[in-house]
């Protein structure tokens, strides 16, 4: 299970490449969302491996924050969306 934890973390590091060279901002945001989900999975695995149950609460918080980050991105119109004046 520790191997699965390390594997998922390696996948997250690979996902950072897409953050680095995503052609537009939506790709970067999608990579950030993948990193959020993978971070949740890694936290859940870490909680079972180390026997610390509080990491599940941390995973819940990370899920909430990743969602807020993406919603903030869309509301800001980060992909040059000029057609939503009510979001300003």
């Amino acid at each position: 299970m520790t191997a699965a934890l390390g594997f998922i973390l390696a996948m997250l590091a690979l996902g950072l490449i897409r953050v680095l060279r995503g052609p537009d901002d939506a790709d970067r945001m999608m990579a950030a969302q993948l990193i959020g989900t993978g971070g949740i999975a890694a936290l859940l695995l870490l909680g079972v491996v180390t026997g610390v149950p509080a990491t599940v609460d941390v995973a819940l918080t990370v899920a909430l924050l990743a969602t807020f980050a993406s919603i903030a991105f869309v509301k800001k119109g980060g992909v040059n969306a000029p057609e939503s004046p009510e979001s300003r």
Partner: protein
Amino acid sequence: MSLALDIVTITAVSAGAFFFLAGTVGLLRFPDTLTRLHALTKADNVGLGLVVLGLLPQAGSLRGGFKLICVWLLVLAAGATVSQLIARAALASGASGQQGHSTVRAAGDEGPPT
């Protein structure tokens, strides 16, 4: 019985890690924003679902198991909503012409899709 539960855990967590691999490779290799979103949602929903399913026998208590399932349900709901929002924003910016050109160019310099 404990051995069987351990086997369930190892199988499901390995399958979840495989889905994370597939999602990351898809995110890196697919040529288009929307196809990348398709790969990403697979990793999000199925990968995390399998990891949670594999961790359920190790949860210890009923309350801990419920909390794991709650994490997964929150990620499912949030992932569905956010995917819709991002796809809509990407489509809206692609319709303006300039972003569509940039995705075509990105598909060109990444080689043929697998």
